[in-house]
């Protein structure tokens, strides 16, 4: 069996004091194969962005990242010298963020920022780098690319800025691209363009894509495999087909049920009562137990593992449509 491109095993991210830590993510495990599209879905504060940042090594002290395993292409990211790990970023591993306007440096032109990335990882003459930059802008379907090279970020629209970010991210042919809510700030027609572009680049370059979003519609269009996160934990991991056809975790089911498009013709939306527990008032048992419609006594006292359920995995003692965990 070949080594997965990215392995994350029992990753946890903590902030704050050591005796009262704020657990932004705990026990997060997943793998991403080369060329695979994995979607991570969850509500705000579910730990999806923080997990991605931890993988990229972008959590600064005093944040604490711990993992049993954190490996890229078989190489242990935690044991690697800092310089080496840094050089992976923007090279083999790249990331784009939600807000394209704040991700670009307002004081420099598009050409400067693109050429800087290329210079850092590949070098080459100024002329060659400029030609690469132009080709990248064309790759991300920026119209009138020649002129946009000299544009400053404030002269670009949101969609255009996100394309420039994407051009920078793919400049060095990454094998893994993490896209954190790449279309959330965009209008729906521009979002459709952007998703199609991401999917095309992913396929053409055979790059693995981790797409973080709160939009289940986006996930269902793009992802092959999906992780659902809740309160810092992965609660379900399944192929996109399985997840939407037969959710195993009550939280996934509730998320799907609360979508307006799954409530056509009904007068009211199905909704999960209550809110996500805060960082310091987490229940003793399963984190969903105070809100779960299927809660049992066991759920309130014991924390479930991520159990295998058919071809999926779900963090639930009583997975839907399957026998309870022993």
């Amino acid at each position, binding site marked *: 069996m070949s080594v997965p491109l990215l392995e994350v095993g029992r990753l946890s991210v903590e902030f704050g004091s050591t005796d009262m830590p704020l657990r932004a993510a705990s026990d997060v495990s997943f793998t991403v194969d080369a060329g695979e599209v994995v979607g991570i879905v969850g*509500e705000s504060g579910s730990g999806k962005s923080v997990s991605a940042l931890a993988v990229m090594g972008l959590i600064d002290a005093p944040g604490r990242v711990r993992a049993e395993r954190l490996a890229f292409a078989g190489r242990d990211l935690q044991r690697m010298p800092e310089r080496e790990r840094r050089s992976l970023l923007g090279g083999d591993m790249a990331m784009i963020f939600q807000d394209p306007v704040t991700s670009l440096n307002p004081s420099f032109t598009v050409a400067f920022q693109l050429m800087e990335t290329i210079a850092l990882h590949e070098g080459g003459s100024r002329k060659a780098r400029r030609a690469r930059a132009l080709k990248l802008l064309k790759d991300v379907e920026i119209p009138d690319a020649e002129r946009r090279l000299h544009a400053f970020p404030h002269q670009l629209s949101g969609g255009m800025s996100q394309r420039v970010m994407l051009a920078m991210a793919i400049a060095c042919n990454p094998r893994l691209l993490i896209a954190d809510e790449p279309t959330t700030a965009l*209008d*729906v027609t521009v979002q*459709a363009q952007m998703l199609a572009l991401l999917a095309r680049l992913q396929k053409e370059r055979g790059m693995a894509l981790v797409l973080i979003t709160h939009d289940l519609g986006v996930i*269902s269009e793009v992802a092959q495999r999906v992780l659902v996160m809740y309160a810092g934990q992965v609660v379900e991991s399944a192929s996109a087909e399985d997840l939407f056809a037969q959710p195993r975790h009550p939280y996934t089911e509730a998320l799907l049920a609360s*979508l*307006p498009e799954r409530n056509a013709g009904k007068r009211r939306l199905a909704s999960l009562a209550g809110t996500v527990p805060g960082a310091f008032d987490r229940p003793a048992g399963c984190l969903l137990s105070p809100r779960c419609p299927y809660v049992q006594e066991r759920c309130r006292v014991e924390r479930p593992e991520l159990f295998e359920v058919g071809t999926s995995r779900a963090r639930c003692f009583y997975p839907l449509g399957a026998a309870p965990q022993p």
Partner: protein
Amino acid sequence: MSDLVLATDALTKRYEVSGGLFQPKATVRALQDVSLSLAAGRTLAVVGESGCGKSTLARQIAMLEAPTSGTITIGGVDATAADAAARRALRRTVQMVFQNPFASLNPRKKVGTALEEPLAINTDLGKSEREERGRAMLGRVGLSPEHYRRYPHMFSGGQRQRVAIARALMLEPRLVIADEPVSALDVSIQAQVLNLLMDLQDETGVAYVFISHNLAVVELIADEVIVMYLGRVMERAPKAELFAAPRHPYTRALLASTPRVDATRGAAALARAAASALSGELPSPLAPPSGCVFRTRCPFAIGRCAEVVPALEPAGAAHAAACIRQDEIG
């Protein structure tokens, strides 16, 4: 008609903006000839992307700004011609709920104070009566009495939005303008707040102008929908007709680009989205295209689209679209 809560006729708003240093002033046409009507107990959804003028429309209807031309009739009274006293009386009947509940509540005021304030300003109720009504309203939006003396920072986003809704309803308005009220909320909380809005409408008969870019939400809550683009109404229709048989190319593009969970998945869905995806982006409202404002992105545009500004042409009892080719492409 007496049960019409809101009607606008050819509402137009232009803003003068600086064209740059030493440049003449430029004009943004934020709203152009918007006519609509809304009956009591009904919900009118206004749909469009950023820059389409939907929030400008909200500000005109809420009388926060005066339109450049056109009329707004609220409960049978012409708000654009009313004097100051009449406008003040009208303002009581129109309230707003904003998108971001983290910004729309005063962090220094307790929830109770925020709820009582509209009563203190607009009515001559005593302190204890105001508190009584405030507490009752808190219960109706699904919060508990102990929340009355808390500050906004002690609440989650969904709870804050409930407070904002409660505040808007304190004066028993006939019309509530909700500007993207659930866009800042997570999907499970969004469902709770939408249910609340619908319950309150059933109880009080309040009419909503519901501004949103999310078509799935609109499909759930709206009775009628208007679709806007660059300050103009592109299509107006009852909800069911709009979603089943959209007439305007822009409405079709919006519907096709909205990602849906139960649509075909994966490559097929993306191919479909890519095929229907509009090319390009919204033109600058400072220099809108001649003729039909949508023609620069429209897959069906022909030469004539640049020459004539299409009028809203009826395509059914309450259905109208502003497209000269709507019959051909249907």
